[in-house]
């Protein structure tokens, strides 16, 4: 009797386990993995938020029913105004109406159920509801209809133009409106903006992308290298018993704990050519010719962002390494000293091998952070002067949100993602299974 009961308990435990893991996995899938795939998909389009004809990803010739219905309503409404102010326009208006109606009828017949969808969109617009559902709003249309539709609109726009030439004063405004509404109706037609790998070839051939890539690599190698070397030195020096340990630890943690944007603002002030004390002292010591060069030249700017990053992160690196050093048993050094090993030999044959995995893990996470650098550069130099400190993330951000070019910006973010993936694969190969140690039941 006891055996099956115990098995059921086991099963419940396992089910609970999957249930407890599920929320994290779902969040990671929805907020990280799915968006990365979407970025990759977006990068294949000429997708721009600030251009209404490219603000969607369109794989085949389509019509935006929302724009179409909206403009159709406006055109008919304005035609009433024209009628009121210019009775002699009646025949032209009748032409426009019949031409548009004919196109409209043909359009609704191109796809089954399109008439119902058009009605639905129309009702939503009447209630001032935005139409967010892409399946409702966008529909594929045949090329033949589109050609006829555009030609009709051009014809009628020209007709309205002619009408305006001898229109009375009061009719000028409605006619101008009508003309622009007719030509705006063409915006409802969405040309496919799928461009394949065009964004990649275009931006990989672009000098600015490579400058940004090289800046990022240089920034990563220099900052992580210096942080590791200086951090190690500091860790070795403070790896002893002294008074005020807690205070030193807190002092060292503050630069790490403050927001990077705040640190960047502080350094903008300290490096400022006019009132920055760092720039002032460096110029007085003859390190730089003029206090202005730090933020107004490419080399100065690069130095500034690197210096600020090293200041912010070295103490953190030192803490990580110190924790590693403290796990080395003292007896190993004593034994080595008995065998006549000097301090350097001890460092290279005991210290380094013992904290190898701690160093690799610290370097991995630092290098990934440095490679993604955004806040520090964006706030401290804005990528300037003349893009000389721009990192790849900063460039991607500017394309995405300053130029609203989601296609090209996504292509660059996919490149950042692939670089990071490559970087971490190399590191994980080096570190091996040590990363998981202590977290899995063996």
């Amino acid at each position, binding site marked *: 009797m006891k055996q099956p009961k115990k098995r059921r308990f*086991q099963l*419940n435990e396992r089910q609970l386990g999957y249930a407890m893991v599920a929320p994290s996995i779902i969040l990671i899938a929805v907020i990280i993995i799915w968006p990365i795939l979407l970025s990759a998909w977006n990068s294949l389009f000429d997708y721009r938020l600030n251009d209404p004809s490219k603000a969607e990803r369109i794989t085949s010739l389509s019509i935006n029913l929302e724009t179409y219905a909206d403009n159709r309503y406006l055109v008919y409404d304005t035609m009433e105004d024209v009628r009121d102010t210019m009775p002699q326009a009646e025949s032209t208006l009748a032409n426009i109406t019949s031409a548009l109606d004919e196109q409209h009828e043909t359009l609704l017949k191109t796809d089954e159920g399109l008439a119902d969808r058009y009605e639905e969109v129309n009702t939503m617009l009447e209630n001032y509801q935005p139409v967010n559902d892409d399946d409702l709003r966008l529909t594929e249309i045949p090329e033949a209809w589109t050609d006829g539709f555009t030609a009709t609109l051009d014809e009628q726009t020209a007709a309205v133009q002619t009408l305006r030439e001898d229109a009375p004063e009061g009719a000028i405004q409605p006619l101008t409106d009508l003309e622009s509404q007719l030509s705006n109706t063409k915006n409802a037609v969405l040309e496919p903006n799928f461009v394949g790998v065009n964004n990649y070839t275009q931006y990989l051939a672009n000098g600015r992308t490579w400058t940004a890539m090289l800046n990022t690599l240089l920034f990563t190698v220099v900052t992580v290298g210096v942080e590791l070397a200086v951090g190690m030195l500091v860790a070795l020096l403070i790896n*002893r018993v002294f008074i005020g340990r807690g205070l030193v630890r807190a002092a060292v943690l*503050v*630069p790490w704990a403050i927001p990077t944007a705040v640190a960047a603002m502080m350094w903008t002030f300290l490096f400022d050519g006019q009132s920055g004390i760092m720039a002032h002292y460096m110029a007085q010591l003859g390190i730089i010719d003029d206090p202005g060069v730090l933020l107004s030249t490419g080399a100065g700017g690069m130095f500034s962002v690197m210096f600020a990053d090293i200041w912010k992160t070295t103490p953190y690196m030192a803490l990580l390494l110190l924790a590693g050093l403290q*796990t080395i048993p003292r007896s190993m050094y004593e034994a080595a000293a008995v065998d006549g090993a000097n301090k350097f030999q001890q460092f290279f044959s005991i210290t380094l091998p013992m904290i190898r995995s*701690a160093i690799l893990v610290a370097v991995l996470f630092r290098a990934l952070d440095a490679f993604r650098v955004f806040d520090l550069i964006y706030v401290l130099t804005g990528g300037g002067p003349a893009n000389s400190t721009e990192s790849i993330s900063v460039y991607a951000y500017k394309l*995405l949100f300053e130029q609203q070019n989601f296609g090209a910006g996504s292509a660059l*973010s996919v490149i950042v993602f692939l670089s990071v993936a490559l970087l971490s694969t190399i590191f994980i190969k080096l570190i091996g299974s040590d990363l998981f140690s202590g977290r899995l039941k063996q």
Partner: protein
Amino acid sequence: MAKRAGIGFYIFLIIFVFLVMFPFIWVFLTSIKPQGEIFSSFQWFSSNMTFENYVSALETRPLLLYMLNSFVVATLTTIISIIVASFTAYAVTRLPIKFKGLILGLVLAASMFPQIAVLSPIFNFVTDAGLRNSYLGLVIPYITISLPLAIWILSTFFIKIPLSLEESAKLDGATPFQTFRKIIFPLAAPGVFTTAILVFIAAWNEYLFALTINTEDSWRTIPVGISFYQSQFSVPWGDITAATVIVTIPIVVLVLLFQRRIVAGLTSGSVKE
């Protein structure tokens, strides 16, 4: 290597700490100088100390509102993230499920992805869901970003709790979830607290999403708010230094109170014990 410290060591230590703290010291000294002196002199101490910069920093921009926004976003993120992460950490370290290596690998990979690669799709989601300029619009991405860190650190703490306690709970008839809620979670409280501090700091400091999603001034968080003090035409260093001091104080307090825990959390991922 527990050497005794000599006088030379303390001199080195003082210089080191001074260099690390120098930017803060200088920013603080600048913040209490009158406007005119900031631009004209490099004197360390001003003869006429003033708090006018502080008044101006609080008046020209809603600094306290930024801090409130940061506080709400960071607190919500911390609470939700800890709950979700502790579930996963418990299941991975204690329950007999398959694919543990795969799950941890996924979590690790999620901690490495560049945020710029998910920014534009998340921006589109949040815009479509009408969550721009709201707390939730930031909390949802933040929870996910902080999950890997939280799961990682919590697992190291959970695995240290002796199995025997669970066994006896099981014998007393506790269900697995009761064991988690009443035994493991309370026993790992120090670890949970450490993780909470790190998640809170990470959410408090986040810049990229906050910059992109909450563009209205009244919804900005501290890092973004501070970076908007400089305008195109003038740089009000007095205001900026004063604002920096104001926002740094809570962090200094946090670090002073919890430095031991923070270090324990930071090193739990990298050092084998």
